């Protein structure tokens, strides 16, 4: 059952005459049935011509007065070939219609559609689909579904607008109206046609939420200047931005088309757009996979290892980093392009992280491999642990993007426990340090420590030392275990930072104190979930 009906006839004829392809004709006739568009192009073209010929014939037969002179002229020309088949009434018989159609097709078939510039023509063919799939397969990605995104040249909006004005005018003659929103969108139509073809070829379904994206960028340099006139008519829509190559972005053009008055548009752009010589070109065909998140907890056993690479003026100050030691193996396993490392707080170069370690999450950007079983993750964890004695990871697992929020929450809200080795100038006895054990919820005020003051604003932070437990070593040394609020500077709490952290250990013990060693004993965050090893 052909998609068009009687009421579409004049529009269809008009558009076809101006060089519009069958599928675009359907769109302007508001054909909403997806299946209609999926028929092979040649069939659609032939059916459309048959439809138009048949109706023309009907009206001639019944001497309809609304016949379009140009169409009749074409028909009469074609009649020349089939003249011998005329019966007595002057009506054509069935068989010659096919000949007419073929000739009509030859005469009025546009090479390249003047509205879609070939997108709904050649780029719906299996050849193109296969070409794209070849690229996808050679990139060796792992995926279970795909989302296809297409970027169309902005001038298509201009041509669409022109065609709409043309059709609107024609329908107006019949007392009908056509809103721009009623016209079926080009992109939508394209996806109706192309998705099943890709699905078939790739062997996986199309899914709007898929993380694996196949994207194609189309360009048509021949008609790039089509939209330039908009800048003269609506200059305020086109502001040059630093990042963009051209000021004629899709958004700007759409905005301008909304604003521009019909008369102004018609002055600058023909309302049956001209037929281009060339088809669009598929400039870029790319695949990307959505980011994958791997979380875990790390221990740091070295007092000479920064968390992130330490590079000043292009020179690396310390070899390696926690981040690199972990990410290196993940990047290789997941075949990712790059990574982003984040953790629930951090520690200094000279501080160890003991206990269950500190939660971290790594975002792997554009991973080619995404499927990992729990067993494979365990193996990966073992690999990382075997590669270095400076760090250890545990609870290595795949998590979602939302997980990052947990971690940052941990950084700001959760408590941490530490163990500090402290030196005092004046001798101490066990009794002298016992008083620390009795202090609960000790409030301290810390000005921004000197050692970070060059990159932080000067401010005072109030923090709480929840509990302390001292361990006497000798008359100048003791170990202190503390549980503190997130964001407390421990070193400064011990030595006082020139009196800028008050109270401090020195002040509490009425001595001068310094910190010799610091270890993080625990980061009290429940995330990521513990895995049974």
């Amino acid at each position, binding site marked *: 059952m052909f998609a068009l009906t009687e009421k579409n006839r004049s529009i269809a004829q008009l558009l076809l005459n101006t060089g519009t392809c069958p599928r675009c004709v359907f769109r302007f006739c508001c054909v909403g049935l997806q299946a209609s568009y999926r028929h092979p192009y040649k069939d659609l073209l032939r059916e459309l011509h048959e439809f138009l010929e048949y109706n023309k014939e009907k009206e001639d037969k019944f001497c309809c007065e609304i016949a379009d002179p140009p169409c009749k002229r074409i028909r009469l020309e074609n009649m020349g070939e089939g003249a011998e088949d005329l019966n007595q009434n002057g009506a054509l018989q069935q068989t010659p219609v096919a000949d007419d159609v073929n000739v009509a097709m030859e005469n009025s078939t546009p090479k390249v559609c003047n509205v879609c510039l070939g997108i709904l023509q050649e780029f719906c063919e299996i050849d193109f689909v296969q070409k794209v799939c070849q690229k996808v397969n050679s990139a060796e990605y792992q995926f279970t579904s795909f989302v296809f995104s297409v970027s169309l040249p902005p001038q298509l909006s201009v041509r669409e607008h022109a065609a709409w004005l043309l059709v609107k005018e024609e329908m107006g003659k019949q007392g009908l109206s056509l809103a721009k929103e009623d016209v079926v969108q080009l992109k939508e139509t394209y996806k109706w046609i192309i998705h099943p073809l890709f699905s078939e070829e790739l062997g996986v379904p199309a899914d709007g939420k898929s993380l694996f994206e196949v994207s194609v960028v189309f360009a048509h340099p021949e008609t790039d200047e089509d939209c330039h006139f908009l800048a003269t008519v609506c200059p305020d829509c086109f502001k040059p931005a630093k990042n963009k190559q051209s000021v004629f972005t899709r958004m700007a053009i759409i905005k301008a088309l909304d604003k521009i008055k019909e008369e102004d548009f018609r002055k600058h752009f023909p309302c049956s757009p001209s037929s281009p010589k060339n088809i669009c070109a598929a400039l870029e065909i790319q695949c990307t996979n959505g980011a994958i998140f791997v979380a875990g907890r790390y221990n740091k056993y070295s007092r000479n290892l920064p968390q992130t690479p330490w590079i000043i003026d292009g020179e690396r100050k310390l070899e390696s980093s926690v981040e690199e030691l972990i990410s290196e193996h993940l990047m290789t396993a997941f075949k990712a392009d790059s990574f982003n490392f984040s953790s629930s707080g951090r520690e200094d170069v*000279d501080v160890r992280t003991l206990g269950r370690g500190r939660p971290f999450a790594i975002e792997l950007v554009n991973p080619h491999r995404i499927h990992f079983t729990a067993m494979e993750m365990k193996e990966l964890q073992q690999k990382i642990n075997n590669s270095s004695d400076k760090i250890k990871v545990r609870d290595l697992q795949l998590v979602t993007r939302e997980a990052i929020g947990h971690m940052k929450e941990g950084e700001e809200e959760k408590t941490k426990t530490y163990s500090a080795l402290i*030196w005092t*100038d004046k001798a101490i006895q066990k009794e002298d340090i016992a008083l620390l054990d009795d202090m609960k919820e000790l409030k301290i005020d810390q*000005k921004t420590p*000197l*050692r*970070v*003051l*060059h*990159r*932080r*604003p*000067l401010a005072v932070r109030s923090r709480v030392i929840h509990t302390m437990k001292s361990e006497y070593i000798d008359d100048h040394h003791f170990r202190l275990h503390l549980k503190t609020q997130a964001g407390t500077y421990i*070193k400064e709490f011990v*030595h*006082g*930072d*020139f*009196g800028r952290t008050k109270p401090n250990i*020195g002040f509490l013990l009425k001595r*001068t104190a*310094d*910190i*010799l060693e610091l270890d993080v004993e625990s980061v009290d965050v429940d995330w990521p979930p513990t895995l049974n090893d």
Partner: protein
Amino acid sequence: MTGGSRACWRVGAGMAAAPGVTERYFTRWYKPDVKGNLCEDHCILQHSNRICVITLAEAHPLLQNGKTIKNINYQISANCSRLQNKVSGKSKRGAQFLTELAPLCRISCSDGEEYTIYSCIRGRLMEVNENILDNPTILQEKVRILLTLSLFLIFIPVLYHGLIF
């Protein structure tokens, strides 16, 4: 600036200071006989991140036995009080600009002597030690021990090489 008879020298880690973490980050610089006043030596502690702490050197009269500080005044002129210094943001906007001979504070003693502490380096004033206003004796205690030093003021030096006189 033509120096006094004693050269300025740099002292690395060491002296009778506490062992450990902080010594690692600071380098000491000395400016002897500031403003031509004999023995009024200043010591500048320069952190590895270029923030400097201005302190008194051991030879300074204020740190000698028997000296009692009566008053510390940050009002150095009619228009300028170091206490009014307010910085904001990461780049520390609003800081008072200091040249080598900019006075930082005036200290008067019970024996009637008065001493002025000078900046010694070019830079922007970030903070002054207000603890000593309530308790001037801290200035004189703990002088040989790093970390809880005497008078201090902190700068971000604008001209780094100003430290080498």
